[in-house]
């Protein structure tokens, strides 16, 4: 079974080698004449202002973090949905309690205006 993967590995190695050799050759063979305009980001365009490593507003993190928290909870709902009949009333009540606690958290977020943009 693993033998079948040998061609794929070979292709990957060839691709890697080709890429590296091409970059290396162009650096060796190509002429290098740098002048200030050439080193700018756009040789003929709008002057770039500020750094490219722009910091995002911390609000993005807020939304992202809250998204992760609520998104991951699906992981519990899915197995319950699959075994819905077998789990019966017990499962249903437990799931209602679970969603209820999540909902309380959601209401808290809404009321604290954590999802408002400005």
């Amino acid at each position, binding site marked *: 079974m693993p033998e079948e993967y040998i061609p794929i590995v070979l292709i990957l190695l060839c691709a890697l080698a080709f890429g590296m050799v091409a970059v290396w050759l162009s650096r060796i063979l190509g002429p290098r004449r740098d002048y200030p305009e050439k080193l700018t980001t756009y040789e003929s365009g709008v002057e770039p202002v500020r750094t490219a490593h722009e910091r995002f507003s*911390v609000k993005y*993190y807020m939304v992202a*973090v*809250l998204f*992760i*928290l609520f*998104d*991951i*909870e699906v*992981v*519990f709902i899915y*197995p319950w949905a699959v075994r819905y009949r077998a789990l019966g009333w017990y499962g249903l009540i437990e799931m209602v309690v679970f969603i209820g606690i999540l909902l309380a958290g959601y209401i808290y977020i809404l009321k604290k205006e954590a999802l408002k943009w400005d």
Partner: protein
Amino acid sequence: MPSLTWYLTLSAVLFTTGVVGVLTRRNALIIFMSIELMLNAVNLTFIAFSAFLGDGRGQIVVFFVMAVAAAEAAVGLAIVIALFRNRRTVDINDVNVLKW
């Protein structure tokens, strides 16, 4: 199918990588990523045991670990942001008003 030992070895290697990362890196976010790597290595152990023992419980544990890791990530990022707002740094060497 490879034997259980392979999976356990892989997860042990991942776990150790995480431990080394925590002990050697100085950036709080990278340390936290190393911790996440440790948790995922453990998840792999659980799944491997679950598959080889033919017992579903291990996979359920993984669900819980994922949820816990998400909660930890949320709190951890909040702490790092609070720190950054005060000091403009996430390097733990700069964080030593209190002695280590």
